[in-house]
């Protein structure tokens, strides 16, 4: 019995090539434009709030940053992994129970500073025993 799943049908992601007869130089999925808008809005608010890069140059930089963000987003989002599922999996990672015996990690910038031998001489004095108040 030869059979085929419907994956090929649902895997097609429509792309917007531009207005009829006037193709734009890039080919992006429709979803990518949505992602670009989602990045653009907070970046624009951030720019206005912080007040850096005034003028047209600032808007260009915000637009380019949003393009970068959209490209990153579209790397992890696709027909197999819708955006909602990616977010849910991220939240699931946050909520997963952790191992109780987490390894203790020590970071040392310079190996010369690693203490390899420690000898401590302690003189333990007899502690006064608390007694009834006099």
């Amino acid at each position, binding site marked *: *019995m*030869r*059979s*085929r*799943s*419907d*994956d*090929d*049908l*649902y*895997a*097609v992601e*429509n*792309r*917007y*090539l*531009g*207005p*009829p*007869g006037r*193709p734009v130089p890039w080919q992006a999925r429709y979803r990518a434009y949505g992602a670009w808008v989602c990045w653009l809005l907070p970046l624009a608010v951030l720019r206005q709030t912080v007040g850096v890069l005034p003028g047209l140059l600032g808007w260009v930089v915000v637009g380019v940053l949003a393009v970068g963000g959209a490209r990153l987003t579209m790397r992890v989002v696709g027909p*197999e*992994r*819708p955006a*909602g*599922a*990616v977010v*849910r*999996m*991220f939240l*699931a*990672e*946050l*909520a*997963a*129970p*952790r*191992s*109780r015996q987490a390894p203790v990690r020590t970071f040392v910038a310079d190996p010369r500073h690693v203490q390899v031998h420690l000898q401590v001489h302690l003189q333990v004095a007899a502690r006064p025993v608390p007694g009834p108040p006099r």
Partner: protein
Amino acid sequence: MSLVPVQRPTLAPLRRTPTVTPDLGLVAEPFAPRRPARTGADPAVREYTPRLALRGISGHLAHATTGTTAWYAVAPRAWSMRPDDERDALMGALAGALARLQGRWLHWRVTWRPHAAAEWARRHDAWARPLPDVPGAVSWDAHLVGEQRRALTSPKAVKEVFLGVEVRGPRRGLGALGDALARRLGGARAADRRVDGELGADVRDIDAVLASSALGAAPLPAARMLHLLYRSCALGLPAQSVLPAAPHGEWEREDVAAVDGLARWSADPYAPTVAVTGVVDGALVTRHVVVASMGRMGDIDVPGEDLPWMTVPDDLPVPVEWSARMRVLPRDRAARGLRQAADRVEAQRRHYEADHGRQVPSALVRGLEAAEQVRGDLETDSPLALRCEGWWRMAIPGRTEREALELFDEVRRRYAPKIAVERSEAQYRLAREFVPGEPLATTAFRRRMSLRHVATAVPQATDLIGDDHGPLLLRARTSGRLLAWDPWHDAGAGPTPVVGGPGAGKTFLLGAVAAQLVRSCGAFVTLLDPSGALGRLVDVPELGGHTRRLSLRDAPPGVLNPFTLVDDPPEPAATAEDAWRHAAGRRAALVVAVLAELLPAAVRSGAQVRPLLVQAVERVGHDRAHDAGEVVDALQHMGAEGERLAAALAPALAAAGALSGRCDQPWSATADRLLVVSTTGLAESGADDPVTSTLARLAAWLVRQRVHVREGSAPTLVGIDDVHRFTATPAGRTLVTGLVRDGRTRTVVTARQASDLLSLVPDDGDAIPWHDAFVGRTEPGNRADALRLLGVAPHEAQQLPGPADAPGEFHWRSGPHCEPVRVDLSGPHLAGLRAALGGGPR
């Protein structure tokens, strides 16, 4: 008088009032309340809420916060060595059964159970008639323990397929509020009973649909429901050897605690596996589990080119479990969704071609082809064209994270290039999906397909072979389960053919069967061994004192003396004259027959030969104290004809030295449990050699003697190795044909070519006269005949794969089933047997 301070009790509600009594002075009455104590109140603890979604079980219904599911055990189906039309019919019936569950969420769970070794050992010990223990060898008790250890080396043995059918979805809004109120006012148990009552008719309908369909599904009993919950909540851990009893199938919310805390699951952020730690048989065990999702699927052809896609990882050494959530979509809804997707693809094509004059990319071409196919499917009413959506996950366990990931890579390699297997983040949530009642973790990796495509998964396909009766001899290639074989159980008498080319492991299998049957059943086994490879079986320590090796060519003088081959009557019958006369008559007849056979053909045909031989035997006597040489001496005193016979017999008797003389260990047909008759050199001597012919006839007589003397009192078996070497001589051919066609004798016959065996049995069309048959590696030219031995009709042979191709691997036909197996003699308690058989199949 000083007052002794009394410590204030820590329990707040209790009052303490110091009182003075005349006799005892001032004492404390710490527990003297002013008003009667309130007893029997509910404990001041919070109500138990399981971490699982499961809230209770009634019968085969599992109540969870996500809804109520009815669970069923799906009947296993054989897949291996079945004709394609039967497999197609199975897949079609499976699709038909799923079509009747349209609109419901289904939860497939595939899990594994280890070998029921303890149960097998108990039954085996009950019916076995083992040989007495030999000092210095493995005792029977140690043998049983070793066999159980061997059976449990594989963490998986029996595949189990469960199907959960959604009976009621999750309650939301007012429904959930009503349920909460009902639980608060009437109790959880009453609420569940009410739900059961409401759903009763629905559940009965589903029961009937599943029982009557190709699924053959039966409602899950309490013990198996417990097993499913254990396997799910301790995902990836080895199975417990002893599960708690499941006295009834009613679980309340508090009972869920039994499985809720079975194992501790943990995962580091974005770790590739989830760690499951729990106690198994008294030891703390941790397993790392990779949960993989089925990704995009290409064209598959089952059974033509591919395996059913839910059985691909079945032969991995670890138990890979499945959890699949799927739903068969109502026809109109599926049609709407498909048309929408097809229109979207068509719009993209127009955008490329009409709006911009560009060539469509290859992915879009495939989408257009799929849209075309879908439109065709929508116009048919076949259940195979129904659409479903679902998520298929696999849990792959490993002792370490590295091992689990390596196994995942192996699984991915096996599915390539037709099916993608994906590992994603959120491993913990994905693993929780395996627990009945838990919600779907993510909608990622959603698969949409036709029921035709779902049916090609055939999750219930597994190896069905054997009846778990007898010594453990074989191991199923797919599941790794140790298989028992008792040639006398449910099989009647008759031959068991073992066919394979050189190095296929036929002799190894025959030797293993013989030794294990002698060891366990006290069987009387006679092996005809032309190659000498089985001779060392007599050195197996556990068989000590019950074996004998007899080399026809090189036997010491007197061992085959025909006078000693016929036993005297046993002691209780010693006074019966008839018994003695009968034994003496048989002895005389055997001596005459043997000596006549030794004569050259020209001399043997004389009319006076037999009367002279009979007279000579009469002169010598009939008891066991004589030998064939005395008969020759007697012939020399019987005139010229006698002298001529004696002169002809003398050189032949000298050539076959075992026939004359005296032997320290006289032969007895009933003494040795295992007799290995080595016929080395007989075949090379030629069929017309009188000595060869005589020895072959004697071997035939010996075998019959052992079989018939023990008939009815003990199991007897004759093993003939390389049967074509015997069929070269008339006596050998007579012997083999007689044994194979004898309905009372159990024989195991090995041959290089199936035609050697088929020529020995009457041609009865496609019907095969044996219950069991083994076919190993064979030459391509013998494939059709070999498959015919397995009961495969010639017109079906082209559809089936060739027989096994590794040494020691066979296709085993046992009754209606046929599966690939391999001979397994692993374990330290079988070291002696392995050494006797040369270490392994060669």
